[in-house]
């Protein structure tokens, strides 16, 4: 510490703790609300200490869900999980082989392919909503897992990241592999994949969160309640209106929707930070 001043140190900690508390406050209120029965939440002001209905509310949400929505939250979480894993694995798989082709081969249309992938960076779902919906509808992929996952797995960022990684791999490795008689696929499998292991893991953390938090796309293409992701479920529960909204269930569902990605970030912080910094390069 340069030029240490004790009172300043204390002040610093006070400011940081205040910051942490302000950031955490909405979650705390949500958690408290998820542990009361509805009647308690309809009083003003609502309670600010946890109640005794925690277990009941979460079990009710997971197995029955809210009255306004026909699917239990357990099923929705499973759908979210399938979508998040599908997107994460899908993106990694198709990006890593595309990057391998671009870095380790010379062929016609190489730069064309590169630019074509680059364009996907510029076209998030939000800006081409309707025509993309139409393509998926024409392909008969509405209300399917394929429709939820496949349109989202093209990824320029992941391809670029793997390209960067491969470019830093020493040429001698490829040379040695070639002299030893290993073909390109063998080299990819036995050398490149093990080398990129931590990058893959870091990317996986980022993409899992990205996939779990997808909202607009599932909102458009799922009308079948058994395919709702948990985020769509929350929206449908809220849509019941203030009079019928079962806030204790909605709040429990909200907590459940946050839990997996937050756990991933906190428990794999090092990989998460690495992934975040690398995909933004």
């Amino acid at each position, binding site marked *: 510490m340069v030029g240490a001043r004790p009172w300043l140190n204390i002040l610093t900690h006070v400011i940081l703790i205040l910051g942490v508390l302000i950031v955490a406050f909405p979650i705390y209120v949500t958690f408290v609300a998820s542990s009361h029965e509805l009647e308690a939440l309809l009083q003003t002001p609502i309670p600010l200490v946890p109640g005794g209905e925690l277990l009941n509310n979460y079990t009710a949400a997971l197995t029955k869900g809210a009255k306004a929505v026909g699917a239990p939250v357990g099923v929705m979480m499973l759908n979210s999980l399938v979508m998040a894993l599908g997107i994460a694995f899908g993106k990694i798989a198709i990006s890593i082989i595309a990057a391998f*082709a671009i870095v380790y081969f010379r062929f016609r249309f190489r730069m064309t392919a590169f630019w074509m992938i680059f364009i996907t960076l510029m076209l998030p779902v939000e800006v*081409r909503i309707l025509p993309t919906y139409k393509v998926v509808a024409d392909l008969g992929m509405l209300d399917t897992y394929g429709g939820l996952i496949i349109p989202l797995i093209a990824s320029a960022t992941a391809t670029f990241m793997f390209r960067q990684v491969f470019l830093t791999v020493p040429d001698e490795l490829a040379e040695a592999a070639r002299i030893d008689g290993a073909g390109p696929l063998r080299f990819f499998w036995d050398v490149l994949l093990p080398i990129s292991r931590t990058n893959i893991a870091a990317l996986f953390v980022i993409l899992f969160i990205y996939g779990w938090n997808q909202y607009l796309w599932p909102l458009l293409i799922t009308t079948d309640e058994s395919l709702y992701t948990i985020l769509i479920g929350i929206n449908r529960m809220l849509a019941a209106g203030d009079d019928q909204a079962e806030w204790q269930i909605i709040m429990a569902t909200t907590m459940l929707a946050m839990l997996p990605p937050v756990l991933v970030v906190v428990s794999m912080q090092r990989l998460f930070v690495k992934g975040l910094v690398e995909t933004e390069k």
Partner: protein
Amino acid sequence: MEKRVVFRNPVLPYLLLAPQIAITLIFFIWPASQALYQSLLQQDPFGLRTTFVWADNFIDLFSQADYLNSLQVTTVFSISVAVLALSSALYLAVQADRVLKGAMAYRTLLIWPYAVAPVVAGVLWLFLFNPTLGIAAYWLRELGYDWNHTLNGGQAMTLVVVAATWKQISYNFLFFLAGMQAIPRSLIEAAAIDGAGPVRRFWTIVFPLLTPTTFFLLVINIVYAFFDTFGIIHSVTEGGPAGATNILVYKVFRDGFLNLDLGGSATQSVVLMTIVIAFTVIQFRYVERKVHY
């Protein structure tokens, strides 16, 4: 940068690229070109005939009071989010960088909102400020301030800005902290020996060295506010009241899916694409080379 050592194979590279290219063509290039194509056409009221109208749809779009309002709302929203999220994150990062012990603990405690989906962030804040049962709305009432964001446009905007900022602070904090920790200690020590206090050291040394990070984050934050906040708007205000929070991305969705105005939605999509392309170019031209981690 190119590889010296490459493999030779007539088909393999194409096979490896095929999945990525196929998905890009089917779900990105084709829909985008459809939007572009439709934005240049006009259908008669019965949908029987379409005529090519060049830029008429765009002229039309930019003369609608609705759309101009949405543009203005988006500008106010994204600038507020970017400024608030950047300044509060920078402030917290400066504090965290100052503590010797525990900087990483504070990082853990501050980064997790990144993992919260925008729509969930919206629901959290909606519950706090719900006019009938929200605890924050109750406190404001106790203080004599009547809170009802479903009627008051300014309050609705404040609420979505706060929710969007809350979610983005963690991301900015992470990059600011990393940027600050990369600044050589010797520079700061030298300044301290010369008698510069913490505030002076920040403005003359730390902040100038952070400009590349700040600029990079500014672009990222504006892109975030433009495109990733759909869930917040959808869950908190649905663009209302009276279009007060009707940002461009939400309007495209609403006009296309709820009002079924296909041509209008396509034209808006093209405008949005142009905006994204502009941001991407800025990011690559000016940011890429200058950011240091």
